[in-house]
Protein backbone atom coordinates (compact mmCIF):
# COMPACT_ATOMS: atom_id res chain seq x y z
CA UNK A 1 0.00 0.00 0.00
CA UNK A 2 1.49 3.38 -0.95
CA UNK A 3 2.32 5.97 1.65
CA UNK A 4 0.88 8.97 -0.09
CA UNK A 5 0.86 12.29 1.63
CA UNK A 6 -0.24 14.44 -1.24
CA UNK A 7 -2.04 16.89 0.99
CA UNK A 8 1.32 18.36 2.03
CA UNK A 9 2.79 20.47 -0.68
CA UNK A 10 6.28 21.15 0.61
CA UNK A 11 7.81 18.66 2.96
CA UNK A 12 6.62 15.19 3.67
CA UNK A 13 5.00 14.78 7.03
CA UNK A 14 4.12 11.61 8.84
CA UNK A 15 1.28 11.97 11.26
CA UNK A 16 2.00 10.53 14.71
CA UNK A 17 0.06 7.33 14.17
CA UNK A 18 1.68 6.61 10.82
CA UNK A 19 5.09 7.31 12.33
CA UNK A 20 4.47 4.92 15.24
CA UNK A 21 3.38 2.19 12.84
CA UNK A 22 6.52 2.72 10.77
CA UNK A 23 8.61 2.57 13.92
CA UNK A 24 6.97 -0.70 14.93
CA UNK A 25 7.48 -2.15 11.46
CA UNK A 26 11.14 -1.16 11.59
CA UNK A 27 11.71 -2.74 14.99
CA UNK A 28 9.78 -5.91 14.21
CA UNK A 29 11.47 -6.35 10.85
CA UNK A 30 14.94 -5.81 12.35
CA UNK A 31 14.17 -8.42 14.98
CA UNK A 32 13.02 -10.82 12.30
CA UNK A 33 9.50 -11.03 13.73
CA UNK A 34 7.73 -9.79 10.63
CA UNK A 35 8.43 -9.73 6.93
CA UNK A 36 7.26 -6.50 5.23
CA UNK A 37 6.19 -8.45 2.15
CA UNK A 38 4.06 -10.75 4.28
CA UNK A 39 2.43 -7.65 5.79
CA UNK A 40 1.50 -6.43 2.31
CA UNK A 41 0.02 -9.83 1.49
CA UNK A 42 -2.12 -9.79 4.64
CA UNK A 43 -3.38 -6.28 3.87
CA UNK A 44 -4.20 -7.23 0.30
CA UNK A 45 -6.01 -10.36 1.43
CA UNK A 46 -8.28 -8.50 3.81
CA UNK A 47 -8.81 -5.55 1.50
CA UNK A 48 -9.64 -7.49 -1.63
CA UNK A 49 -9.94 -11.25 -1.18
CA UNK A 50 -11.82 -12.02 2.01
CA UNK A 51 -15.31 -10.71 2.36
CA UNK A 52 -18.98 -11.48 2.86
CA UNK A 53 -19.11 -13.24 -0.54
CA UNK A 54 -17.45 -16.19 1.20
CA UNK A 55 -20.17 -16.38 3.82
CA UNK A 56 -22.87 -15.93 1.20
CA UNK A 57 -21.59 -19.04 -0.59
CA UNK A 58 -21.73 -21.01 2.67
CA UNK A 59 -25.33 -19.91 3.26
CA UNK A 60 -26.41 -20.58 -0.33
CA UNK A 61 -24.93 -24.06 -0.15
CA UNK A 62 -26.74 -24.72 3.14
CA UNK A 63 -30.00 -23.59 1.54
CA UNK A 64 -29.52 -25.86 -1.47
CA UNK A 65 -28.01 -28.94 0.12
CA UNK A 66 -29.70 -30.38 3.24
CA UNK A 67 -26.71 -32.60 3.97
CA UNK A 68 -24.38 -29.62 3.93
CA UNK A 69 -26.81 -27.68 6.13
CA UNK A 70 -26.80 -30.52 8.60
CA UNK A 71 -22.99 -30.63 8.61
CA UNK A 72 -22.86 -26.85 9.06
CA UNK A 73 -25.19 -27.16 12.03
CA UNK A 74 -23.11 -29.90 13.66
CA UNK A 75 -19.58 -28.76 12.83
CA UNK A 76 -19.47 -25.35 11.21
CA UNK A 77 -15.68 -25.11 11.47
CA UNK A 78 -15.19 -28.20 9.28
CA UNK A 79 -18.11 -27.47 6.94
CA UNK A 80 -16.77 -23.97 6.26
CA UNK A 81 -13.18 -25.19 5.90
CA UNK A 82 -14.37 -27.64 3.26
CA UNK A 83 -14.99 -24.58 1.06
CA UNK A 84 -11.41 -23.42 1.77
CA UNK A 85 -12.45 -20.60 4.08
CA UNK A 86 -10.08 -21.07 6.96
CA UNK A 87 -9.81 -18.89 10.02
CA UNK A 88 -6.34 -17.63 10.81
CA UNK A 89 -6.77 -17.32 14.54
CA UNK A 90 -7.62 -20.95 15.15
CA UNK A 91 -11.14 -19.92 16.09
CA UNK A 92 -14.09 -22.25 16.01
CA UNK A 93 -17.15 -21.37 14.03
CA UNK A 94 -20.74 -21.95 14.94
CA UNK A 95 -23.58 -21.48 12.48
CA UNK A 96 -26.85 -20.33 13.99
CA UNK A 97 -29.95 -20.85 11.86
CA UNK A 98 -32.83 -18.40 11.79
CA UNK A 99 -36.33 -19.87 11.97
CA UNK A 100 -39.76 -18.24 12.08
CA UNK A 101 -39.55 -18.57 15.88
CA UNK A 102 -35.97 -17.51 16.50
CA UNK A 103 -33.88 -14.75 15.00
CA UNK A 104 -30.17 -14.78 15.76
CA UNK A 105 -28.04 -11.69 16.27
CA UNK A 106 -24.26 -11.62 16.62
CA UNK A 107 -22.21 -9.13 18.62
CA UNK A 108 -18.85 -9.00 20.33
CA UNK A 109 -19.26 -7.11 23.57
CA UNK A 110 -15.59 -7.66 24.45
CA UNK A 111 -13.96 -6.08 21.42
CA UNK A 112 -14.87 -6.93 17.84
CA UNK A 113 -14.35 -10.65 17.32
CA UNK A 114 -15.88 -11.42 13.97
CA UNK A 115 -15.84 -14.38 11.56
CA UNK A 116 -13.17 -12.91 9.28
CA UNK A 117 -12.82 -16.00 7.11
CA UNK A 118 -16.42 -15.80 5.94
CA UNK A 119 -17.32 -12.11 6.35
CA UNK A 120 -14.04 -10.23 5.98
CA UNK A 121 -13.47 -7.40 8.44
CA UNK A 122 -16.41 -5.96 10.37
CA UNK A 123 -18.29 -2.82 9.36
CA UNK A 124 -17.73 0.28 11.48
CA UNK A 125 -21.00 -0.01 13.33
CA UNK A 126 -20.14 -3.53 14.51
CA UNK A 127 -17.09 -2.12 16.29
CA UNK A 128 -18.93 0.85 17.75
CA UNK A 129 -19.66 1.05 21.49
CA UNK A 130 -23.42 1.72 20.95
CA UNK A 131 -23.87 -1.51 18.99
CA UNK A 132 -21.66 -3.55 21.30
CA UNK A 133 -23.50 -2.44 24.40
CA UNK A 134 -27.06 -2.20 23.08
CA UNK A 135 -27.22 -5.48 21.18
CA UNK A 136 -27.30 -7.45 24.41
CA UNK A 137 -29.52 -5.12 26.45
CA UNK A 138 -32.07 -4.25 23.77
CA UNK A 139 -31.64 -6.38 20.66
CA UNK A 140 -35.11 -5.56 19.33
CA UNK A 141 -34.34 -1.86 19.66
CA UNK A 142 -31.06 -2.35 17.80
CA UNK A 143 -32.83 -4.13 14.94
CA UNK A 144 -35.23 -1.20 14.64
CA UNK A 145 -32.18 1.00 14.01
CA UNK A 146 -31.52 -1.27 11.03
CA UNK A 147 -35.17 -0.90 9.94
CA UNK A 148 -35.69 -4.54 10.78
CA UNK A 149 -39.04 -5.10 12.46
CA UNK A 150 -39.62 -8.68 13.55
CA UNK A 151 -42.96 -10.09 14.72
CA UNK A 152 -43.39 -10.06 18.51
CA UNK A 153 -43.67 -13.83 18.35
CA UNK A 154 -40.10 -14.12 17.05
CA UNK A 155 -37.60 -14.57 19.83
CA UNK A 156 -34.26 -12.81 19.39
CA UNK A 157 -31.25 -14.76 20.51
CA UNK A 158 -28.00 -12.82 20.93
CA UNK A 159 -24.65 -14.56 20.47
CA UNK A 160 -21.64 -12.89 22.04
CA UNK A 161 -18.49 -13.75 20.07
CA UNK A 162 -15.16 -14.51 21.66
CA UNK A 163 -11.62 -14.96 20.42
CA UNK A 164 -12.24 -18.73 20.36
CA UNK A 165 -15.77 -18.90 18.98
CA UNK A 166 -17.33 -16.84 16.17
CA UNK A 167 -20.81 -17.06 14.80
CA UNK A 168 -22.33 -17.04 11.35
CA UNK A 169 -26.06 -16.43 11.09
CA UNK A 170 -27.80 -18.50 8.42
CA UNK A 171 -30.77 -16.36 7.44
CA UNK A 172 -34.06 -17.92 6.38
CA UNK A 173 -34.25 -18.73 2.69
CA UNK A 174 -36.52 -16.08 1.16
CA UNK A 175 -39.85 -17.01 -0.34
CA UNK A 176 -39.91 -17.23 -4.09
CA UNK A 177 -36.32 -18.45 -4.28
CA UNK A 178 -37.23 -22.00 -5.25
CA UNK A 179 -35.43 -23.18 -8.34
CA UNK A 180 -32.58 -20.66 -8.06
CA UNK A 181 -29.03 -21.93 -8.44
CA UNK A 182 -26.53 -21.68 -5.59
CA UNK A 183 -24.88 -18.80 -7.36
CA UNK A 184 -28.19 -16.94 -7.70
CA UNK A 185 -29.02 -17.69 -4.08
CA UNK A 186 -25.68 -16.35 -2.89
CA UNK A 187 -26.59 -12.95 -4.32
CA UNK A 188 -29.55 -12.79 -1.95
CA UNK A 189 -27.32 -13.17 1.10
CA UNK A 190 -26.18 -9.82 2.48
CA UNK A 191 -23.46 -9.26 5.02
CA UNK A 192 -25.98 -7.87 7.50
CA UNK A 193 -28.18 -10.96 7.12
CA UNK A 194 -25.23 -13.08 8.26
CA UNK A 195 -24.71 -10.89 11.35
CA UNK A 196 -28.43 -10.90 12.06
CA UNK A 197 -29.04 -7.19 11.55
CA UNK A 198 -30.82 -7.87 8.25
CA UNK A 199 -32.69 -10.53 6.30
CA UNK A 200 -31.80 -12.21 3.05
CA UNK A 201 -33.07 -10.26 0.05
CA UNK A 202 -36.22 -11.27 -1.78
CA UNK A 203 -35.38 -12.62 -5.26
CA UNK A 204 -36.95 -9.66 -7.04
CA UNK A 205 -34.89 -7.19 -4.95
CA UNK A 206 -31.53 -8.80 -5.66
Amino acid at each position, binding site marked *: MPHDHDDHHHDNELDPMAA*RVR*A*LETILTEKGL*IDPQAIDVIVDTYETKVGPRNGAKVVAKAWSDPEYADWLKRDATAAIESLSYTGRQG*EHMQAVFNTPDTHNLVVCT*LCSCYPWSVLGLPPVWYKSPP*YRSKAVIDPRGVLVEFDLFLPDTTRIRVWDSTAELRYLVVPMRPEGSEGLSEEQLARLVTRDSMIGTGLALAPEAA
Partner: protein
Amino acid sequence: MSLRELITHSRGLPASGDGPVFAEPWQAEAFAMAVALHDRGLFTWEEWAATLSGKLKHPGALDDASDYYSCWLEALESLIASKNVADSHDIDQLAAAWQRAAHATPHGQPIRLENDPDRS
Protein backbone atom coordinates in the same frame (compact mmCIF):
# COMPACT_ATOMS: atom_id res chain seq x y z
CA MET B 1 -22.63 9.76 15.84
CA SER B 2 -25.66 7.60 16.62
CA LEU B 3 -25.89 3.95 15.71
CA ARG B 4 -28.41 4.79 13.00
CA GLU B 5 -26.06 7.36 11.47
CA LEU B 6 -23.24 4.83 11.47
CA ILE B 7 -25.49 2.30 9.75
CA THR B 8 -26.66 4.83 7.18
CA HIS B 9 -23.08 5.84 6.54
CA SER B 10 -22.01 2.24 6.00
CA ARG B 11 -24.91 1.74 3.57
CA GLY B 12 -23.85 4.81 1.60
CA LEU B 13 -20.51 3.21 0.86
CA PRO B 14 -19.63 1.73 -2.55
CA ALA B 15 -21.97 -0.77 -4.11
CA SER B 16 -19.82 -3.74 -3.16
CA GLY B 17 -21.55 -3.29 0.18
CA ASP B 18 -18.31 -3.90 1.98
CA GLY B 19 -16.99 -0.36 2.02
CA PRO B 20 -13.36 0.55 2.49
CA VAL B 21 -11.88 -1.71 5.11
CA PHE B 22 -9.31 0.73 6.42
CA ALA B 23 -9.57 4.51 6.58
CA GLU B 24 -5.82 5.07 6.35
CA PRO B 25 -2.81 2.96 5.31
CA TRP B 26 -1.35 2.85 8.83
CA GLN B 27 -4.52 1.13 10.06
CA ALA B 28 -4.07 -1.64 7.51
CA GLU B 29 -0.43 -2.04 8.51
CA ALA B 30 -1.20 -2.11 12.22
CA PHE B 31 -3.90 -4.68 11.54
CA ALA B 32 -1.59 -6.86 9.47
CA MET B 33 1.24 -6.68 12.02
CA ALA B 34 -1.01 -8.10 14.72
CA VAL B 35 -2.11 -10.91 12.41
CA ALA B 36 1.51 -11.63 11.41
CA LEU B 37 2.80 -11.63 15.00
CA HIS B 38 0.01 -13.98 16.01
CA ASP B 39 0.85 -16.26 13.05
CA ARG B 40 4.41 -16.29 14.31
CA GLY B 41 3.26 -17.26 17.78
CA LEU B 42 4.29 -14.11 19.66
CA PHE B 43 0.89 -14.14 21.37
CA THR B 44 -2.32 -16.15 21.32
CA TRP B 45 -5.47 -14.70 19.86
CA GLU B 46 -7.04 -14.86 23.34
CA GLU B 47 -4.24 -12.63 24.66
CA TRP B 48 -4.82 -10.31 21.73
CA ALA B 49 -8.57 -10.05 22.25
CA ALA B 50 -8.15 -9.43 25.97
CA THR B 51 -5.55 -6.70 25.39
CA LEU B 52 -7.57 -5.02 22.64
CA SER B 53 -10.70 -5.17 24.75
CA GLY B 54 -8.86 -3.43 27.59
CA LYS B 55 -7.82 -0.60 25.27
CA LEU B 56 -11.30 -0.25 23.75
CA LYS B 57 -12.85 0.18 27.19
CA HIS B 58 -10.97 3.39 27.89
CA PRO B 59 -13.09 6.24 29.23
CA GLY B 60 -14.14 8.52 26.40
CA ALA B 61 -14.19 5.75 23.78
CA LEU B 62 -15.79 7.28 20.71
CA ASP B 63 -19.27 6.12 19.75
CA ASP B 64 -18.40 6.11 16.06
CA ALA B 65 -15.48 3.72 16.65
CA SER B 66 -13.16 6.08 14.76
CA ASP B 67 -10.59 5.45 17.51
CA TYR B 68 -10.74 1.70 16.92
CA TYR B 69 -7.40 1.38 15.18
CA SER B 70 -5.72 3.76 17.63
CA CYS B 71 -6.77 1.28 20.30
CA TRP B 72 -5.58 -1.54 18.07
CA LEU B 73 -2.13 0.07 17.81
CA GLU B 74 -2.01 0.69 21.58
CA ALA B 75 -2.86 -2.96 22.16
CA LEU B 76 -0.13 -4.00 19.75
CA GLU B 77 2.46 -1.79 21.47
CA SER B 78 1.40 -3.05 24.85
CA LEU B 79 1.75 -6.73 23.88
CA ILE B 80 5.07 -6.07 22.19
CA ALA B 81 6.28 -4.44 25.41
CA SER B 82 5.01 -7.26 27.60
CA LYS B 83 6.82 -9.77 25.38
CA ASN B 84 10.04 -7.74 25.84
CA VAL B 85 10.36 -7.03 22.12
CA ALA B 86 10.38 -3.24 22.43
CA ASP B 87 9.13 -0.77 25.00
CA SER B 88 7.27 2.45 24.37
CA HIS B 89 10.46 4.48 24.76
CA ASP B 90 12.08 2.60 21.84
CA ILE B 91 8.97 3.16 19.76
CA ASP B 92 8.76 6.88 20.69
CA GLN B 93 12.38 7.41 19.67
CA LEU B 94 12.06 5.63 16.38
CA ALA B 95 8.72 7.26 15.57
CA ALA B 96 10.32 10.68 16.11
CA ALA B 97 13.18 9.65 13.82
CA TRP B 98 10.68 8.63 11.15
CA GLN B 99 8.95 11.99 11.46
CA ARG B 100 12.25 13.89 11.11
CA ALA B 101 13.15 11.70 8.15
CA ALA B 102 9.81 12.44 6.51
CA HIS B 103 10.28 16.15 7.05
CA ALA B 104 13.74 16.04 5.50
CA THR B 105 12.59 14.10 2.45
CA PRO B 106 11.66 16.15 -0.61
CA HIS B 107 8.09 15.67 -1.63
CA GLY B 108 7.53 12.91 -4.13
CA GLN B 109 10.45 10.82 -2.94
CA PRO B 110 10.08 7.77 -0.75
CA ILE B 111 10.65 8.42 2.92
CA ARG B 112 13.61 6.48 4.26
CA LEU B 113 14.81 6.31 7.82
CA GLU B 114 18.33 7.16 6.57
CA ASN B 115 16.99 10.64 5.74
CA ASP B 116 16.67 11.48 9.44
CA PRO B 117 19.19 14.33 9.91
CA ASP B 118 19.68 13.39 13.60
CA ARG B 119 20.44 9.79 12.80
CA SER B 120 23.57 8.75 14.63
